[in-house]
């Protein structure tokens, strides 16, 4: 994770009236200017920067405090950890892509609602987006689990055998989408107001069709906004721990980067480098998040430029 420190204020400007004693004055200005930032700097420095540096150092730590690549080598050579990486990335990509396709349409439809409908939809989305963690896992087990009531209802009333195995990757996809899709919609909803009704009228005047409007005007304008939503949803899915842990427990073979990390931590005893491997996985997650953030900022810069152009 990157930390943005507030830009340093310019050189202290001593008011001319203060005149002769410059020393205490400049100290006071320094304090008044930097004072309010101290809690933030301490928190960010201690909780993020120092912790991140310590994690990076730990991931390279050898048995007697030296430097080694062993932990990194181990996480990439151990098959189930490598599988977990592929599974995590795949799962996040599937979830983010589903959100991109379905969520964008949903967001467009919601943006077209009347004010009251929009407020109601947003409230609902907010509730669903916050319904994550262990409680969601429990809800999923009691609805779609082996003896979940939705599954049983479908069987008893309609004779339909629900094929979904909740404890597989696809079960995770469904569970993630339940709370990440609303989040995606909330993220891209503001962008929908960028589309102006005049443009559709203009396309019609020029004899264009709906399809051409979306292909040439709508999607190109929206694309960076949707893409940034994809990147954030991807990173968000990748970092989930409590949902898969509560759903699958810690004996699972459907492991993800985060649950492998947890597993290494819960079993880290002396004489092994399991703790260092946990640190390496944490650093790996940090790197992926940082890359996602960089991508997001690049796209955001382009979005802003585009908005400027639209004015």
């Amino acid at each position, binding site marked *: 994770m990157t930390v943005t420190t507030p830009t340093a204020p310019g050189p202290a400007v001593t008011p001319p009236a203060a005149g002769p004693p410059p020393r205490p004055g400049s100290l006071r200005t320094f304090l008044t200017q930097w004072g309010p930032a101290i809690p933030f700097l301490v928190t960010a420095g201690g909780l993020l920067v120092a912790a991140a540096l310590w994690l990076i150092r730990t991931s390279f730590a050898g048995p007697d405090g030296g430097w080694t690549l062993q932990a990194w080598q181990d996480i990439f050579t*151990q*098959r*189930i950890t490598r599988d977990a990486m592929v599974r995590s990335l795949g799962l996040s990509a599937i979830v983010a892509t589903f959100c991109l396709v379905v969520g964008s349409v949903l967001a467009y439809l919601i943006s077209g609602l009347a004010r009251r409908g929009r407020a109601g939809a947003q409230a609902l989305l907010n509730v669903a987006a916050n319904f994550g963690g262990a409680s969601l896992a429990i809800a999923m*087990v009691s609805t779609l*689990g*082996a*003896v979940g009531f939705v599954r049983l209802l479908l069987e008893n009333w309609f004779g339909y055998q629900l094929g979904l*195995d909740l*404890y*597989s990757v696809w079960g995770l996809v469904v569970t993630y989408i339940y709370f990440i899709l609303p989040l995606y919609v909330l993220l891209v909803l503001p962008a929908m107001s960028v589309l102006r009704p005049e443009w559709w009228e203009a396309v019609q005047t020029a004899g264009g069709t709906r399809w051409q409007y979306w292909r040439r005007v709508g999607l190109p304008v929206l694309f960076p906004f949707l893409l940034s939503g994809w990147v954030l949803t991807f990173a968000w899915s990748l970092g989930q721990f409590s949902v898969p842990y*509560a*759903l*699958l*427990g*810690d*004996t*699972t*073979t*459907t492991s993800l980067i985060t649950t492998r990390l947890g*597993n290494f931590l*819960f*079993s*880290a*005893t*002396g*004489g*092994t480098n*399991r703790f260092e491997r946990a640190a390496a996985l944490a650093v790996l997650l940090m790197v992926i998040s940082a890359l996602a953030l960089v991508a997001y900022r690049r796209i955001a810069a382009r979005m802003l430029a585009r908005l400027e152009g639209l004015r």
Partner: protein
Amino acid sequence: MDMTRHQRLSRRLVPAVLTAIALPLAACGGSGAGADADAAAPADVNAAKEQAKQFRTAGMPDDWINFGEFYQSVCDSYELGCNGFAAQGVNRTDTDMSSAEEIAAFKNETTNAPMCSDIGIAFGQVAESEGVLLGYTPEAAAALPPAYKAADGGWVASAVGVISIMTNTDVIPNPPKSFADLLKPEYKGRVSISNPVTSGTGQATVFSTAAALSKNKGEFDMDAAIDYWAEFFRLGQRNEAEYSAAAFERGETPIRVAYDFVNIQAGQLVGEKGVDTAIVIPAEGGVWSPSATMCNKKTEDPDLAKLVLDHTLSDEGQLVFARVGARPVRYVLGELEVPAELKTNWLPEGQYANVIQYPDDAWPDPAVVAERWENDVLTAG
């Protein structure tokens, strides 16, 4: 009223915060030599009385081998005037952790570190090599074999369990009776086990098969165990859902492999709700798998910790474990009679005919078990 509570809180909070800041500083300057020197000496009961006013344990919930009653029995036997039930939170507080986490807590926590913990027996040697143990051996430990106690004090076996199979017979009318049965197609995706990488129960599960499936009776064959579990995962027998008594009751996890005393308690719990269960020791047998109580070198309550270790092996303390179906370690070694009325919950003695005592001096290293599980078993699935 609110006001007084608030005042009381802050009166306690301020010194607590100050101590929290000061203690690590003091620890840097001081030396631990004094504590080590008298670690082997017998407990001072008067000091223990003071220490029993507020103490902390880890991984010793009231219902795990009856630790609530056990601690109450410590309080009563030595007339410490304390309350042993963590759920009531009067004198004892407990944080549930895995064995590895407990050792880490012993190692890393300095202020109000946990006094004693319950660990899977194989973690004893890990705690020893990490050097986190209180160097105290109760006198009664002399009768224990080497695999049941620390070489230089600090942990002793407490009560012994054997891995058993519990089945919700409302969901599965024909319950499995052996490890071989668990591989049958009819139980595919139904069998719930603990994780040998993190939990003592999971390790005991692997150890059980190592004893039960060895070619020569009485031996301990880890390769046979790993092969069996690899096959188990390859066939997809494992139930993916997270086990809980509630999940078992609903039939989400209809077959559970765990310690006999844990399954007996869970079976009673769901039995009261009208769910029928069957609990068996696998026909191939298993290994007596003790839980162990270990105590912390850095505890602020060393005298109480020594009393806990003493009481763990005393007749009275041992019989407390028996009450919930855990076999006291001294009973398994043939040194203690358990009255028949305490055995009413126990599974029939005949089922244990093939259960062996661990033949070697040191249990397999948990780290080695973890790596083999991850690299040879999980990859088979």
